[in-house]
């Protein structure tokens, strides 16, 4: 399809060119490697967050490919159970903890401040810290894996399988500590995003005018804040059980094996929505832009997001129907699991209505969204089936569930994510991805995905359990497994197309311009890629789709350009409140992250690690937070 030349974006930046040199100096990082280490620019950090997340995605994908190869035929001797168990544990762990959640937050770290029309994320040093912690955690678990100390008990690490009786050595400790790393990182980002979205939106961007992507990230961040402590608690219990012999999960001494499952799934179920809700925001952005109309039923959509986030906390027991909890309680969770389908139904309807009543342009991002519909709706319907206790008892922990959650997670999150990449790539890099390659990417992915995962529904129904490293010959599973493996290679090829597309675009991609898609939201109101200070002047917003207004965007002035100042606005109406100075680049978030890493890894081996490791961490944090002369009077008078 011929690429439509982007309509010239509203010529916003020109209004604010005054003082941009000084702004550039003020917001610039130190040159070179040192600047790379010390930066607090949300775009640089977001970018490396995204890159790291994608690296983990590819790594975990390679593991999946290895597993599918092992399962291509029955009684395959490619690998033994120990290797296979580590593979699927690493696949799940990496996908859930190192890819899905971080990448959603990473996109948000990049896009949210731009969409809010502000100059940087709130708490930028925390942002840098969060990235380092995430990186070190991810690198740690992968090095451990490479050294044969990878987790072997699945991404869910059920006790007692994960306690020291059945998982000797340090494998599970590394896993549990990796949780701690990623949770610290995720919580930090969540706090930043909440603060950014609530306090730094451009004047006039009331909650009612707030783009759905911001809404979805706001809800996601709150969910992170409520869900993650549960799993951190669980994994800390696990580590203390394994390291110092506490009895949290020991049924023989007052503990309970099911305590782990409750704590884990109280996080684990919202986790799915933590991955899924940002994707809903991305879809809304894409649908809006490519349908060239505001998303239908904005209020209903917001309510749908809020109810999704709320109900997500009331479903965790549907992962535990087979554990023999009281039947009446299970019925409640069935009902709750069913109810959560309603907000999804509302959203699907609204998007279809938006596309149907808009003037859609079927560019690659929108293709991925259409793919999302086809896949996610199926996944959602199998989700409804799983919500039913009796049916769940049959298909729980079978390939039916594998199919279901890949439909939900890949369909519901990865397809929109790819759409989002195609959508925001020009903003990130200033260059455009090839549409042709994009379509290849989409169709290979779409076909490959369905070929891989659709047969798994049937496999589950005819009795194939999950997490098996091999299966007998005469079960009737051979053909479907082989098909699934072929599909997996199709997905791999599609991923390769994506990588090639990205590399090619980076080298010789078509320059994108500020707003290649003629999108309505504020991130497109600045250069591609945006300058360090994002906006020379802060735009004032008067609608939900500000860039589609015929008028030029009015701009605010009054922020100092000789220091890193942003405008804080009120949480609901986005009325300007005060100006706020943001900290300068610093290496101390990095040192703090290193100190924290030392503490975490040390505490895998000795509880004294917590004690002695706290000292360098305290030192690093103290220096980080030591008030510098620059910071004095960070809060200035209410502007204008």
């Amino acid at each position, binding site marked *: 399809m011929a690429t439509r030349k982007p309509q010239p974006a509203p010529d916003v930046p020109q209004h604010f060119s005054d003082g941009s040199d000084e702004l550039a100096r003020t917001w610039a990082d130190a040159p070179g490697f040192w600047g790379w280490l010390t930066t607090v620019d949300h775009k640089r950090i977001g970018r490396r967050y995204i890159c790291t997340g994608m690296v983990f995605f590819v790594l975990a994908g390679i593991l999946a490919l290895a597993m599918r190869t092992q399962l291509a035929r029955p009684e395959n001797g490619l690998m033994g159970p120990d290797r296979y168990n580590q593979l699927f544990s690493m696949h799940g762990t990496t996908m859930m903890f190192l890819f899905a959640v971080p990448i959603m937050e990473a996109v948000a770290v990049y896009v949210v401040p731009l969409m809010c029309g502000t100059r940087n994320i709130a708490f930028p040093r925390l942002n840098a810290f969060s990235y380092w912690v995430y990186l070190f955690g991810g690198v740690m678990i992968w090095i451990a894996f490479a050294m044969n100390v990878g987790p072997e008990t699945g991404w869910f690490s059920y006790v007692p399988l994960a306690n020291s009786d059945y998982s000797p050595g340090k494998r599970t400790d590394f896993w549990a500590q990796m949780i701690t790393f990623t949770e610290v990182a995720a919580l930090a980002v969540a706090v930043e995003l909440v603060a950014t979205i609530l306090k730094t939106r451009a004047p006039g961007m009331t909650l009612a005018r707030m783009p759905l992507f911001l809404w979805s990230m706001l809800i996601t961040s709150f969910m992170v804040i409520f869900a993650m402590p549960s799993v951190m608690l669980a994994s800390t219990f696990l580590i203390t059980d394994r390291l110092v012999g506490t009895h949290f999960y020991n*049924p*023989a*001494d*007052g503990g309970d094996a099911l305590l782990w499952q409750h704590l884990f799934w109280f996080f684990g179920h919202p986790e799915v929505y933590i991955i899924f809700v940002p994707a809903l925001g991305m879809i809304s952005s894409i649908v809006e832009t490519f349908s060239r109309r505001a998303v239908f039923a904005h209020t209903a959509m917001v309510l749908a997001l809020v109810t999704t986030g709320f109900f997500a906390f009331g479903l965790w027991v549907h992962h535990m129907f087979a554990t023999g909890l009281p039947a009446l309680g299970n019925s409640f969770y069935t009902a709750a699991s069913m109810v959560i389908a309603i907000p999804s139904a509302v959203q699907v309807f609204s998007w279809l209505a938006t596309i149907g009543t808009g003037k859609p342009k079927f560019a690659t991002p929108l293709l991925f969204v259409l793919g999302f519909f086809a896949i996610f709706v199926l996944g959602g319907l199998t989700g409804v089936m799983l919500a039913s206790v009796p049916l769940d008892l049959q298909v729980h922990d079978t390939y039916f569930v594998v199919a279901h959650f890949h439909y939900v997670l890949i369909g519901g999150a990865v397809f929109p994510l790819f759409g989002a990449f195609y959508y925001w790539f020009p903003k990130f890099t200033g260059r455009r991805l090839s549409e042709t390659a994009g379509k290849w990417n989409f169709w290979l992915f779409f076909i490959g995905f369905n070929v891989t995962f659709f047969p798994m529904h049937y496999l589950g129904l005819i009795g194939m359990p999950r997490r098996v490293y091999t299966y007998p010959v005469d079960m009737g599973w051979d053909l479907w497994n082989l098909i699934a493996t072929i599909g997996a290679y199709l997905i791999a090829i599609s991923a390769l197309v994506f990588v090639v597309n990205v590399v090619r675009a980076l080298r010789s991609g078509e320059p994108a311009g500020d707003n290649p898609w003629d999108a309505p939201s504020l991130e497109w109101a600045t250069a591609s890629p945006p300058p360090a200070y994002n906006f020379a002047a802060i735009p004032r917003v008067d609608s939900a789709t500000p860039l589609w207004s015929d008028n030029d965007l009015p701009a605010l002035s009054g922020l100092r350009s000789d220091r890193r100042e942003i405008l804080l606005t009120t949480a609901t109406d986005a009325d300007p409140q005060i100006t706020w100075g943001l900290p300068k680049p610093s290496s101390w978030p990095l040192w703090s992250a290193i100190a924290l890493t030392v503490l975490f890894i040390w505490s895998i081996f000795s509880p004294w690690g917590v004690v002695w490791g706290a000292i360098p961490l305290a030192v690093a944090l103290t220096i980080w937070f030591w008030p510098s002369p620059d910071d004095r009077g960070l809060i200035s008078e209410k502007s204008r």
Partner: protein
Amino acid sequence: MAARFQSQATRPRIAGSSGMGGRWIALSQSNARHDASLQHDAMGEVSEPAHCGNGGGAASERRPRLISLALAAVVLLAIARAAAAVEVAPSDGDWPMAARNYASTRYSELNEVTADNAHRLRVAFTFSLGVERGQEAAPIVAGGTMYLAAPFPNVLYALDLTQPGAPLKWSYRPNANRAAQGVACCDYVNRGAVLWKDKIIYNTLDGVTIALDTRTGKELWKTPLANIQIGETVTMAPLVVKGKVLVGNAGGEFGVRGWMAALDADDGHIVWKAFHTGPDKDVLIGPEFKPFYDSDKGSDLGIKSWPPEAWRTGGGTAWGWISYDPELNLIFYGTGNPGPWNAEQRPGDNKWTGGLFARNPDTGQARWFYQFSPHDLFDYDSINENVLLDLTINGAPRKVLARPERNGYLYLIDRASGEVLSADAFFPVNSENGIDLKSGRPNYNPDKHPQVGKTVRNICPTASGAKDWNPSAYSPDTGWLYIPRQNLCMDWQATEVNYIQGTPFVGADVNMFAGPGGYRGAFIAWDPVARKSVWEIHEDLPIWSGALATAGNLVFYGTMDGWLKALDAKDGSLKWQFQTGSGIIGQPIAYRGPDGHEYIAVLSGVGGWAGAIVVANLDARDKTAAKGMVNATADLKEKTRPGGTLYVFALPAS
């Protein structure tokens, strides 16, 4: 007092003829007065021993008694007003068997040492047994000789009491198999020898019964009975009844099959052997068998109350005490816990473990059986002593058997029929909610029901029981039983256990600790007629020694930190104590020396299940060591050290 002193019904005249002046009253009178005025009598009796035991008067009293002994073929232990010794003929100053008499009263009628003069007791002599292991044996005294059975390697010593300082007369060292130590559940103890005519007979740990010539220590015969390869050992004190040596095995923690054997005392050949699990013909259940309760009636219950084959490893050993009633011609003994401890591996009532057999000593045929712990849940071995008493219950004279059982209940059982007359808790029991006298079965507390994979907390009493093997004493003067009691509770986790021949077959992780009140031992006086305790003495440590009662209004017991204590039998006040240097888990006795004076003897030397932490140097950091007992006695190493010494006390010559 006389009311409670009665001889056996069949021989009132003989009893009367024992020449003890006003002390011995014929049975017909005693029964009439007995229970109505028990307390009153007890008080009224005080003056009597004082009269008898005073200085030269005592000596003069003794002579006619000795004469009467020489005259009578049988001397009745009239004091016990119980089934008296018929064939063993101890003088009233001897101690021929561990329980002193067939009725197992552990009462000595000697009254030279009294509550008033006990504070003057001094060490007369001591003797080192050369083994620093648990000394559970009762010294055996007869004919001016004291016989001491030492723990493994089971050397038997004969001390000449007629010489000053009681020098060694002879000793006998069996060549016992060292390996037996590995299958002895709770320290390698020995509970004593038995005197039969001119033979002293005892068992070695590796399961050999040996008869020695009392004069020379020459081995007369020996009969191997136990097979240590399958975990059998023998620790019990044998009993000789009508020329038959009764020996039972130990090894309930090794999945052995319990048995009781009778050997001919003359040549050691096996006369009969009764198993405690399996088919009726093995158990010696025949037409004579008339159990009182329905649940014990039926054929081959020793197979049918077990899962297939489980009876072969079902325990039910007999390592405790045997009593004998010559009138009924029945022996009474308890059978140990079923194996393994984990009850889930042996559903069913697990006959004939955890119960009490009455057998004909001539043929071994069972007369009746009563099961204290059908489907035992907590290792409540039922091997404790059976004290044979004639009491008036509800106005009627009954021949009863008093049994302070491990489960914390004191049973009075009609020893002719096996009917349980009463069962009262002498310990704050929570594992069972009383005994249903109709069915004879305990009401197990469902809250304390163990299950594999679950830990049940705070079960009282422990596996070692409200009272373990260490026997109580009965004083006819007071009419009370003196029970050395433990005060322990436990946490219990049943686990599945593998039967591997010759290795322990237990299946429970246990952790014991002090029971209600925070103390770990108690010594109680129990009135079997009023069915309540009269007084209690609390001890910090569990009491693992036996009790002794004497006519001097005294009761003796030892503590695990080495004190031998003498209490006033009536009010429990401490009259005398002596630190022996090592914990006492033995059985104190009283005897009349060749010089005519009363002596108190006890073996000091900590050990046994409760003392294993000291003698085997167990590590108290492991709360489950020694099947949980280590946690209950974790401080014992600091309170006592191993030992193995005989202490003999007497009043100074003055």
